[in-house]
Structure formats: C-alpha cells, structure tokens
C-alpha cells in the first residue's frame, strides 16, 4: 500500500515542491542580497550579502508604502461597491424572469476574457481624445464630466477599479447565485408568513445564510487585489507618476527592468507575507466557523 501511495503522490509532489515551494524559498534567499541577476545565484559569504538592508529600504520606500495604500483603497472599494453590487444582482437573477440564463451568461462573459484583452479594450474606452466614455458624456451634454481617466493621477485608480469591476463582478455574482440557490425557499416563505417584509427576509435570513459564500468571495477578491498585475500593466504600467502602481508592478520594474533582483525579491517576500498573514488571520478569525463545519463533515466521511 505504501508503494502505491508513494508512486501516485510522487509526480504531483515533485512538481509542486520544485515550482511552488522552492521559488518561495529562492525569493526569501535572494532578498538578503544585492544582485543584478547576472551569473549564478550569489553565495552566502560574498560581499553581495547585505542582510536585512533590502527590507529596511522597502519599509522607507514611498513607492512601496504607496503600493500598500493603493491596495487598501482597491480592497475597500471592492468591499463597498463591487461585492454588494454582485450580491444585489445575484438576488435579482435568482427571481423567476424570462431570459435569466442569457443575462447570467452576459454578466459572466468578461471573466473569461484575459486581463490583457480587457485592458487594451479599456485603454480605448477611456482614451481622452476619442474614447467611448468621453464621447458618450459629450453626446448626453455632460462635457464637463469628461476627464483624462487613465492619464490623470487623481482619477486613474478609480478608472482601474472600474475595469476590475467590469471584469470580475460577474464572477462574484455567480458565487452568490450558487450560494443563494443552496438556501431552501421554505425558510424565506416561513419568514414571510411570520410577517417579515422583503428587506427583513434579506437581512435576517438570506444574508446570514449566505455567510460562507460571502466570506469566500471577500477572500478571493482580496487575494486577487494583493497580486494585481496584468490589468494595471496593460492599462497604465503603474502610471502616471506611480498613481496606479501595485506591489507586483513595482516588483516587475525593479526586477526585470532595473535588474535589482535582491530588492525585487524583497518585494516578492513582502507580498508573500502579506497574503500569508491575511490568509491565516482570515481563516482564524473570519472563516473559523466555515472550516469547522468542513472539518467535521470530513471526519464523518472517514
């Protein structure tokens, strides 16, 4: 039996160890060095070893601190605007209506387009001269609202957020829709008989029962925001004047354009630690009840 277990697990374990776990260790190792990426890996005893200097630099780097601030802004915007919108839409599409399947297909469609395609399309949509948004605004007599969108440091982050929402709200809507369909309608009917109006049914029955789905969707949204790269790279390359830069973009620029592999590795490590701390804290404090449920059902099946 042990032979079977070993042989079946071996390929996956090798692949996973070499290409998921090992890179994280390499990033940790490189983050202690000053290295331009040429030649083999720097050796521990060499003069390239600089201890924690990269991390000290990181913590006083306005750019990196700005990345964190922008990440938090997008997280807050997602939690306050994007996810509630997805939830509302899911409840809307849960009602009996003609063409429901078509609406669902359309809302989810942007999810299958790559971030690059979405990004290039939206550079045209947001183009200041003859982009779609400004043309529409002037056509309906709102020339004053026309803006530079992606070219203006004051609006760029919100424009990027709008594109993120365009691409991902359908995904969260699908999650909520699946969660909602797992709630028996009898519960809502019982609440209605007890005199609860639509709002109270939503607040006291639907929302609490959607808890696990909402917690999962929030988790996925935040993990996605921490590593945001493709969309920003294509839309703005982090500009103008770093106003839309993310940690992954900063890492790419320092690593692959300025050839500061050590410093870029330190940014990778920071991204890793931020997601790790977030994931552990979230599992511990927010999803605790959900995983407890999962673990007990796992035990039942044993």
């Amino acid at each position, binding site marked *: 039996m042990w032979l079977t277990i070993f042989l079946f697990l071996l390929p996956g*374990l090798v692949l996973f160890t070499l290409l998921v776990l090992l890179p994280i260790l*390499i990033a940790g190792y490189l983050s202690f060095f000053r290295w331009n990426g040429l030649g083999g890996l720097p050796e521990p005893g060499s003069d390239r070893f600089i201890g924690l200097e990269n991390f000290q630099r990181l913590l006083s780097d306005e750019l990196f601190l700005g990345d964190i601030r922008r990440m938090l802004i997008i997280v807050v915007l997602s939690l306050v605007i994007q996810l509630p919108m997805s939830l509302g839409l899911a409840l809307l599409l849960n009602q009996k209506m*003609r063409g429901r399947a078509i609406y669902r297909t359309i*809302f989810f469609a942007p999810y299958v*387009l790559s971030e690059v395609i979405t990004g290039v399309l939206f550079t045209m*949509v947001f183009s200041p001269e*003859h*982009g779609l948004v400004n043309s529409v605004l002037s056509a309906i007599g709102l020339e004053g609202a026309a803006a530079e969108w992606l070219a203006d440091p004051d609006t760029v982050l919100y424009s990027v957020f709008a594109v993120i929402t365009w691409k991902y709200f359908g995904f969260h809507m699908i999650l909520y829709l699946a969660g909602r369909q797992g709630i028996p309608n009898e519960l809502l009917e019982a609440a209605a008989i007890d005199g609860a109006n639509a709002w109270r049914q939503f607040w006291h029955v639907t929302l609490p029962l959607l808890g696990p789905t909402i917690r999962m969707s929030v988790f996925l949204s935040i993990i996605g925001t921490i590593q945001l790269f493709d969309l920003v790279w294509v839309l703005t390359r982090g500009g103008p004047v770093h106003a839309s830069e993310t940690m992954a973009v900063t890492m790419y620029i320092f690593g692959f354009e300025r050839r500061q592999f050590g410093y870029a*590795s330190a940014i*990778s490590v920071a991204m890793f630690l931020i997601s790790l701390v977030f994931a552990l804290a979230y599992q511990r404090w927010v999803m605790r009840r959900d995983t407890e449920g999962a673990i007990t059902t796992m035990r039942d099946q044993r």
Partner: protein
Amino acid sequence: MSTASHARPAGPRTRKRVRSLVLHATAITLGSFIVVPIVYGVLGGFKDTGQLSNNPFGLPDPWRFQNYAEILQSSFFWRPLFNSTFIAIATALLVVAVSAMAAFIFARFAFRGRELLFTLFAAGLMFPFAVAILPLFVLLRMTGLLDNPLGVILPQAAFGMPMTIIILRTFFRSIPREVEEAATLDGCSAFGFFWRILLPMARPAIATVTVIAIVTSWNNFFLPLVVFNDVDLWTIPLGVQQFRGQYTEDTARVLAYVVLAMVPALAFYAVAERQLIGGLTAGATKG
C-alpha cells in the same frame, strides 16, 4: 395588500408585469455596461482612425473590412493562437493527470500525515502567483527552460494543482466504497481501479477541472511575459500587448486585433459555460 389596489384597480397581473419590467430594466441597464464596450470594439474594428474620432459609436460608414482581413492573413495572429492552444492543452493534461493521482490517494487511502500533506497542497491556493514570478525566472534560467514552452507549462500546472486536487478529491470521495470493494474482489489493482473505474466515473469532474485549467492558462500573461523572449513562442496575451505597442496610432486596427483575440475565449465559454461555472463555484465553496 388589497389597499394598494385602492387607487386604481390593478390586479395581481399588472403588479406582476410592473415587477418584471423593473427587473428587466435593471438587468438590461447593467448588461449594457458589459456589452457596449465589446460592441464598441467590434464596430471600431470596421472603422478607420478618422471615423473613430468623428463617429465613435455609430455604425461604420463605410464598413472597412481591411483591418480584420489583414490580421486574419498574418501569422502575427495565427502563431500566438497556435501557441496559446498548445500550451493550454498541455497544461491541462499535465495538471489533471498529476492532480487526479494525488486526489485519488487523498480521497481513498488512510495513512499518517495525509491531512498534513493535503493541507500543504491546499495552502497553495493562498500563494499569489505573482510572488513566484521572479524566483521562477531565476530557476527556469538555471535549468535552461527560458524560451521553452515547458517553462510556462510546468509552473502553470504546478500552480493549478491546489484547486484541481480539492475539486477532484471531493468528487472521488462521493463514489461509494462498495464500488471499490467489488473491483478489488474481481482482482482489480489500485491502479486498475483508478484508471478503469474511478476516472471514467469522474468524467464530469475531470471535464470541469480541465476547462478551468484551459481558461487559466489561456489568460495567463505574467509568466509568458518573463519566460518568452522569442516572438515565435508568444501567446495571445503577449501578441495583443505587442500589437498595441506597434500600432499605437492606429486604434481601429488594434481594436480589430483585440476583438479577434476575444473570439476563441468567448467561443470556448459558449461551449463550456456549465463546466466552468460549476467548477468555479464548487472550488470556491468547498475550498
């Protein structure tokens, strides 16, 4: 609720109709936010730059087929299309094969350390891919896998494993023990049971994880960006980005390229919508 009909004798039918009207109005308004940028792209591809600035959202006048036609005749479109397809299929085959084997062990064998190992794989879901980009680049360069399709296929498969294992393990568990016992009594080895009974029974789950792997690989940009220097290896996202850089002034041509690049993904979505949505919701609710 009869008081509501006091002012005007509106029956339940009228109320229902108003309600459905509001529902549709909301859905159509939101739907148009999705559809309008895409339609703008499709129509824009039929215009020239002058038309795009004078007449941004009307129908093209005259229709120019040149942009689409020229792209469809150039290897600059077909080459990335072929590369993306090849890499997506290879990634899917690899990740499904190794994950199915691991999920089989995690689902049907009891041994010390199983949950620990499984948790290690499942924890991979929390590692942002972006964290690994730079060290992967260093690693792939040391092993000579830069400018080699394997340099993208292998890491993609490795990072796809957590989700695939979680979904497959759940499904493998749902297959009753009796099936396995009967197979063993008939002289079936562990591998025979896995290959001839479990996998065929798990076809819907296999289809789901395959579709997810294909879509994820198809849309990957960051890894191919650092691995492929050679234009002949570029995938669709790299092609789109490069084409945009090359024809900055010719917006209509770029729109045509973007629209054509969307077609395979949307066509695949049309075919595999059920598997994709089913898999994503299952992965998110069970992970």
